[in-house]
């Protein structure tokens, strides 16, 4: 259940929210769908393209929704997807 | 420091064969024993249980022989010389993992103190019924080395030899004794440490990045890295290539690997094989024997000579690889060959094969008691013309 923030934190301006970079190694994907199904933020969906295995790898719907929980990274059986924090040198 | 803390008990002893075997193992550098008690090899386990902790080694009594053999391979791959001891029924249980040891080229020693079989058989009586099993016991094509001690001194000496051969050729070596040799007590001389030749496995010269665990040297044996040295290799019982990668669908990889595993022993047979000749130079009848049967045979040959028969003894110390060329050469020189064995026909088949045209008389003795010298003498007289 999403937590509804009803009050803005006092230091909200100073907090830097990490931005995510989602990397998909498309040709490793076997199309199991675990990352898409279990992403808590509904960031991924099945793509239309085919990879070398003849399956549809995931694609990112909205990278800004990703909170870097790394669940997709942990649950992928094929090491085909991982999330890293975007390095924008302070200007995200 | 007491006597017992020494690894090598230099001096003269009066000891039983099983204990001598254990002392030989320790003298060779064995520091891991995993086994399961079984008559008549239990005394080896008991001696190792007492002695190994004294010299900083590990004894573990596994839950069965299958686990024992697996633990021996594990310890060897961790870099420690390791061994197990058993008899016929346990030897049968160990076969699958002996195959694994052969396939992953693991140096290790398996002592089989043979007793009456098949199955539970005669636990407290002698036999020589595991000879063929030592060679063909596991499935698939592979080669092992088997040595046959015939005295307490040889139980000590040949166990050291077994370790050395296993380290040189990265192969399981079987010490194939029998219950009489295992349980009898005789004088034993243990030399000083510097008089004992101990060989260790060849280590890799290459760096971890370049190392190919199953790439052989000129003698067809690959140098061996062990766990924890940074090589991070992969060893599997599946058919594999030089890198260790499973190649279960490659005919070429299977052929290459299996041939090498066999050739490394077959092509080095002359270097490996040991025999002992007594009164064979002018012999007309040769007795070919091993183990306890060779003790009776020696007595019979001497008695034959007293009666004017030119008999001689070819004692096989190495049973596998079979000393083909030695047996063929002796067969050419003599009129007849007598093979006494405490089984119903095992090594005699190899002798027949190598002896070709020379007639071979087989003298089986079942029941657990060694041949009496006069039984062998009778056979010698019968074949002598």
């Amino acid at each position: 259940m999403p937590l509804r923030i009803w009050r803005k934190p006092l230091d909200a301006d100073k907090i830097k929210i990490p931005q995510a970079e989602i990397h998909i190694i498309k040709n490793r994907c076997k199309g199991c769908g675990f990352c898409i199904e279990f992403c808590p933020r509904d960031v991924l969906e099945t793509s239309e393209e085919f990879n070398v295995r003849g399956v549809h790898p995931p694609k990112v719907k909205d990278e800004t929704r990703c909170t870097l929980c790394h669940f997709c990274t942990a649950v992928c059986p094929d090491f085909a997807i991982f999330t890293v924090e975007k390095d924008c040198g302070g200007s995200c | 420091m007491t006597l017992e803390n020494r690894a090598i008990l230099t001096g003269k002893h009066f000891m039983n064969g099983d204990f001598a075997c254990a002392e030989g193992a320790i003298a060779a550098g064995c520091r891991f024993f995993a086994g399961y008690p079984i008559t008549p090899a239990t005394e080896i386990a008991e001696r190792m249980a007492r002695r190994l902790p004294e010299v900083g080694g590990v004894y573990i009594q596994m839950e069965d022989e299958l686990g024992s053999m697996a633990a021996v391979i594990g310890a060897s791959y961790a870099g420690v010389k390791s061994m197990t001891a058993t008899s016929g029924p346990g030897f049968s249980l160990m076969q699958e993992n002996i195959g694994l040891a052969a396939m992953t080229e693991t140096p290790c020693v398996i002592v089989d103190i043979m007793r009456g079989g098949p199955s539970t058989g005669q636990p407290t009586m002698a036999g020589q019924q595991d000879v063929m099993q030592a060679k063909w016991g596991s499935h698939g094509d592979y080669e092992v080395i088997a040595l046959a001690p015939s005295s307490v001194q040889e139980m000590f000496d040949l166990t050291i030899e077994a370790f050395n051969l296993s380290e040189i050729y990265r192969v399981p070596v079987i010490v194939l004794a029998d219950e009489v040799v295992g349980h009898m007590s005789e004088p034993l001389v243990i030399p000083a440490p510097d008089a004992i030749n101990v060989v260790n496995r060849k280590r890799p010269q290459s760096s971890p990045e370049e190392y190919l665990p199953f790439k052989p040297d000129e003698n067809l044996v690959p140098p061996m890295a062990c766990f924890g040295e940074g090589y991070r290799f992969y060893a599997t019982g599946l058919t594999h290539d030089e890198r260790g990668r499973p190649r279960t669908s490659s005919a070429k990889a299977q052929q290459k690997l299996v041939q090498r595993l066999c050739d490394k022993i077959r092509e080095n047979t002359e270097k490996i094989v040991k025999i002992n000749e007594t009164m064979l130079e002018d012999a007309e009848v040769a007795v070919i024997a091993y183990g306890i049967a060779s003790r009776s045979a020696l007595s019979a040959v001497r008695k034959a000579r007293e009666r004017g028969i030119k008999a001689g003894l070819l004692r096989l110390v190495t049973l596998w690889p079979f000393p083909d060329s030695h047996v063929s050469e002796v067969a050419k020189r003599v009129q007849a060959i007598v093979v006494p064995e405490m089984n119903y026909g095992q090594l005699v088949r190899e002798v027949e094969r190598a002896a070709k045209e020379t007639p071979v008389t087989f003298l089986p003795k079942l029941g657990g008691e060694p041949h009496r010298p006069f039984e062998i003498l009778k056979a010698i007289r019968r074949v002598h013309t």
Partner: protein
Amino acid sequence: MSEELLHPLERFLREWMIPHIWCEGCGNGIILNCFAKALSELNLDPNKVVVVSGIGCIGRISGYTNTDSYHTTHGRAIPFAIGAKLAKPELKVVVISGDGDLFAIGGNHFIHAARRNIDMPVICANNFNYGMTGGQYAPTTPLEAWTTTTPYGNIEHPFNLVYLAAASGAVYVARWTTLHVRRLTESIKKALQKEGFSFIEVISPCPELYGRYNQMRTGLDMMKWFKEASEVQHHLDPAKAEITPSKIVLGEFVNIEKPSYGRLLREKITQIQEKNVGGE
């Protein structure tokens, strides 16, 4: 969405063996992932980690970890590991194998290793059948399940693996599924650092065989079953930790301290050698 960056756990994978042979939706890859993650979060010397596995789909895992690895005969991973560990105690020897390999043919070795409290973590991938050979029934196959050798439904009661491990003497016993990746990783870390015999049962999807034969055609179907049915009950009596179509009890059931085989052996050897030096 670039592809130049390497996966963060790449260094734990044996590069020339990847990609692995496991099916789409198979949980074994997740176990490999969690194991690699656990290694990355601990300060272990990777050169001292030895992965030993038996025969089965999960048995191939030792080929994929960038560690010293050994792939034994069926059922003999544990005794091999015991040999390696006792011969060289500084090694961190880990056994990762399947429910058939560890509890059918290897059952005897499992209970004795747990009894002896050998220092090693044992991770069991439980997919309720013998996958590698095409989906025959295993000691963990539920009653009435369809497998190729129970074509009329299984009539055998399955093991409760965590109960068996606890009863045999394991000092750390946990059960997770491949969906519970974080808790599984934490358990693996605990097991890697704990003195004594640790056992982690991982319920894992086998969609091509067990799943297909039992109305869970995809890995996703099985993972959804895990999600619906899982219930975490830490410290529950393992005898009561059941697995049914509607309830999979997970958690850490045992976490006790008991001197390990290695500790007792070291103490005994020290005693013996001191006595011998001290006397005469």
